């Protein structure tokens, strides 16, 4: 996964996290990998920003003051403007129920915290490509190939 596919270079990623130190890690790494990175410090700010900018992907922290990540994700999925944006949770929760809750809320994936930046990048690329494939109508094999490359990368 060393080469960024042309379709995902320059994609916009919104990261919603209340802890600046967490943001710093992800923002720096993703900016170094040619993404446009936007930040929000809580769920409501994230929802407003997502509606305004319509990023290509949202990275969402679970535990935040105010509305939590699950509720934020549900609201994103309930809004036609943000419904189709893939959401990846960043969660320190190891509980299976929380992982299930993340998917139930509409997430496409999650990464455990503290995350490996390489893993995060691999998952982001997969979901951006999946979405690109969906919207451009490329056949399924591309998806399968990407899944393979993901499991190799991780």
């Amino acid at each position, binding site marked *: 996964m060393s080469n960024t596919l042309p379709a995902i270079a320059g994609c916009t990623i919104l990261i919603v996290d209340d802890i*600046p130190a967490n943001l710093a890690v992800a923002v720096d790494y993703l900016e170094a990998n040619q993404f446009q990175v936007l930040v*929000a410090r809580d769920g409501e700010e994230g929802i407003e920003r997502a509606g305004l900018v319509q990023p290509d992907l949202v990275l969402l922290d679970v535990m935040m003051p105010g509305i939590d990540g699950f509720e934020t994700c549900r609201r994103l999925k309930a809004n036609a403007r943000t419904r189709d944006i893939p959401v990846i949770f960043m969660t320190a929760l190891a509980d299976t129920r929380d992982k299930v809750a993340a998917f139930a809320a509409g997430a496409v994936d999650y990464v455990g915290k503290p995350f490996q930046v390489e893993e995060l990048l691999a998952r982001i690329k997969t979901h951006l490509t999946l979405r690109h494939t969906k919207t451009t109508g490329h056949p399924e094999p591309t998806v399968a190939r990407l899944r393979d490359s993901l499991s190799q990368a991780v």
Partner: protein
Amino acid sequence: VQLDQKRLRQILLNLLSNAVKFTDQGRVDLRVKLLSQSSGEVQLSFEISDTGTGILPDQLETVFRPFEQVGDMQHRAGGTGLGLSISRQLIQLLGSEIQVQSSWGHGSCFSFVLSTVAMAADRTAAAADGSVVGYRGPRKHLLLADDIEANRTVLSEILIALGFEVTLANDGLEALTNARSRIPDLILMDVRMPVMGGLEAMRHMQALPDLREVPVIALSAEATDEKQSDCMAAGAKAFLTKPIDFPTLFHEIGRLLNVTWIREIRNTDSSPVYESIEQSGIPDPEQMEALRVLAKAGNMRAIRKKAEELALLNKHYRPFTDRIIQLSIGYESKALLRLVEKHAQPIKPMEQVGNS
């Protein structure tokens, strides 16, 4: 009559939007009355009343705490809960106190009285440290650690207006990290914070040769001797209780940094105290609009780049662009948007309000 128009407008807008939010039916009134007028002193009362949900008697005090909102869930969902807290602090800054009267189910009335003498010369403060507008000597760098956004916002705005460079931290650990990466001249440390409290952070600093000598002013909502001695034992050089009395704060900062304050001799044509960023240091509307768009999008890198460009363009923008850069480095996306939006419209420094 002269008033700090910008601050008054901010107070009234906060209180009015709060009243509107909690009123489904009926009305919201703003009444301004001339209470007394003698030579050199005019007293105005401001009243914002609504026919909304009202406040239960036992909640009358907590309503001003940051993030505290009374009322049912439907209403609570709407706001950040900072409005009343900020309004109270701004009114205190103007030397007055906000009052609230309410009956549950029938509405609330928030009121305060401003005396123009208190505003023009800040009577209580002026005797000691009142009309401080800046300080002499090289620019000093302060680190402010407080977990409550409203406190950080109000205090940092005031300190920046006085010419300080201010770095913010949400908790003791962040304060420690920030202080180690760049040693500040002075630290303002809230005692009670999540992750790492002020006492623990101060103890860590005492153990670090680079930070041991940095003076710390401890800020605490608990006004007990015990809390004070805990703070001093942990290494604080001064102890202030919240809500912060600004003249005392200025006095302590002056003492610990050994700076000489610049005081403003006021007359009726003078400008307001907190003006330093507002006057010439704001980029033109077109540039501000570009900053606003970037702040709205939450793109910290792009806004930092833009601010750096502006700083090169005109050195008078520096206090403003420094602040933008500093907020963007801390990922303070909300504070950043607030700051940019606040300055995005041209602000008249002073205006005639009422009769004089």
